[in-house]
Structure formats: C-alpha cells, structure tokens
C-alpha cells in the first residue's frame, strides 16, 4: 500500500484519538463496573503521564488516565491531524511545513499557564490547562505529520536501494 499524506493524516488522527479515547474510557469503565479494564488502561498510560487525579479532567466522577495537559496535547494533535486530512483531500500535494513562528505562538498559552501554575499566582483549572496544551498539540501535529511522511519516504528509499538488484560492474579494460 502506497503511503500518501492523506493516509498518514488518517493514521495520526486514529492514533491520537485512540490515545484520548483510552484516557476517557478508563473512568467510564470504572463507573460501569469494569475496574480491571480501567486498571489495565491506567497501567498502560502510566509511563507517559503522572496521572495525578487533582490535575486531571474528570468523567463520571473519576479522573481520566492522562492529566489535563496530556489530554489537551493529544486532543489538539488529533484536531491538527484532522485539519491536515481535510487539507490533503482538497489539494494533491504534500502539506507544507508551517513557519516556526506558529510553534512559538502556539506554545505561548501553555507557557503562560505553566508560569501561573509554577509561581502559584492562580493555579489554572484543569480545563484551562487542557485548552492551553491543545493549541500546542495542534501546531505540533502540523509539523509532525508532514515530517513523518518525509521519514516514510526516506525509509522506503533505503529499503528499495537494498532490495533492488545490483547492476553488474565491469572492471575498466577487461573484456
């Protein structure tokens, strides 16, 4: 199967949405009497996040398995992948890389929120943390998806060079 930017955007969207869905599924499973499933998801996502209940969004009265920032990042990433998918379906070429200024602007809300959090001026609520991180996640995905498409091209070329039959070499003057 040939990898296209649109297909890659689909994959990125599916993985990031799946990661968010897992985080949301655990509290719902816990609420509906499946604590084993909730525990398995919590353990699976524990290497990537501290999972502190007081810094997480809550669903059905239980904390999600990713903190608000991680949830926001993943949701923003999914939104960016969705946006790229729409872009790819309307144009035949690879999406261009955005300016690095976009990354700086997108990181600004998360940076401000982090400063407020660390200095303890007014610790932001979990939804505010998630929203600030979502902007950054959106911008990151606009870089990540085209970069990963280039990466696939590099790997594909390397595999093709290795598997292609080598042309016989003729020593100069022989014959």
């Amino acid at each position, binding site marked *: 199967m040939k990898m296209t930017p649109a297909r890659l955007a689909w994959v990125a969207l599916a993985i990031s949405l799946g990661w968010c869905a897992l985080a949301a599924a*655990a509290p719902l499973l*816990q609420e509906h009497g499946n*604590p*084993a*499933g*909730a*525990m*398995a998801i*919590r*353990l*699976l996502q*524990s*290497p*990537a*996040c*501290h*999972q502190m*209940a007081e810094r997480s969004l809550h669903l059905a009265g*239980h*904390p999600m398995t990713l903190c608000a*920032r*991680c949830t926001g*990042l993943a949701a923003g990433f999914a939104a960016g992948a969705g946006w790229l998918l729409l872009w790819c379906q309307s144009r*035949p*070429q*690879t999406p261009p*890389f955005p300016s*690095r200024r976009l*990354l700086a602007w997108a990181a600004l809300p998360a940076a401000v929120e982090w400063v407020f959090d660390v200095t303890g001026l007014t610790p932001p609520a979990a939804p505010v943390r998630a929203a600030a991180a979502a902007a950054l996640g959106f911008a*990151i995905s606009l*870089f*990540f998806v*085209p*970069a*990963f*498409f*280039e*990466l*696939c*091209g*590099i*790997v594909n070329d390397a595999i093709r060079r290795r598997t292609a039959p080598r042309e016989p070499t003729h020593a100069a003057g022989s014959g």
Partner: protein
Amino acid sequence: MQQDQADIWKPSLIAGAVFGLLSGIPLVGALNCACCSLIVGAGVMASFMLIRASAVAVSYGRAALTGALAGLFAVPFWLLADVSFTVLRGRSVTQDFDDAMEQTRGMVEGGEWVVDAMAQLGAVGLLMITSVIFLFIWIPFGTLGGVLGRALFERRTTPPAIQPPPQGWTPPPPPPPADPGTTQPTFTS
C-alpha cells in the same frame, strides 16, 4: 548531496544513551511523567547534533528519523540504568512495579486479578513488558523531539522536495540541433 548529509546513527545513539540513562535514574526519570519530556529531549538533542554535523540543511524527515532512533536506543539504556540503580539501592526489581500498582489501586477499586496476573509474570516478564510498552511510547515521542529540534535549530533552507509530475504529463521535446552555420559567441582577448 548525499555525501554532505551527516550520519544519523551517531547522534541518535548518543542522545538515546544519555537520555535513556537519565530516565533510569530515580527522581530524574520522573521527568518523563511530563509527556515523556526526557525522551522528547533525546529527540531534540539528536536532531541538534545532526544539524551541527551536517554540511547541508537537514530535512524534517531525517530529523524525525534521528529522533525516532534516539527513542528506540533510549529503551535498552533505560533498562540498564533502571536495573543497576535498583540493585544498588538493594531493592527488588519488582518493587517499582509494586509501587505503581499501589498508586493505581488507590485510584481504581477492584480489578485485583490484573495485579495478580502481572505479579505472575515475575521480574523478567515485567521488565520485558515494560520495555515493549516504552518502545511503543518512546519512539513516537522521540520522533516528536526530532521534529521539534529541526524546527528550533535548523536555520538553513532545505531544497524543495521534487513533486511527482501529474498524470498524462509528457516531457517537452529536446531542442533542435544547433545550425552548424551559427556559432556561439566567444570572448577572445
């Protein structure tokens, strides 16, 4: 062009080793709880080293690949550091897992069979499962670090990628051979 591009293995191995070992150090490794920040750092460092070593502008794809490899290499180094520190501190290899389980139990009531099933795996099984989970999580985060490093540190411009020609496109015919009667202007002193 190909010769001017720096090798991706060395920066990814160095960055993976440094950040993998850091991830295995108690307390320092806890930084990974913030969106795998150490592993994103490994990708950024690998990308930075690649950009410094390359004579031409590094593409996002190569930076992403270097970051992905850094995430991959970080896992065995994390395993090495984690087991070493656990032994040095005189703890059981399963102790960290028991601590994580204890924390999870505080949040989820019930589901004891999951804990029992994991405990049946033993130290080696738990380390192997953890390593596989880390591989699946750290490679994408390392890739992300590589992309961020490219966005932050590469100031040179990459030549635009060659787009494939549209379907039905045929190359223009070659120019007709030059008339032997006409000669190109020459400059003589």
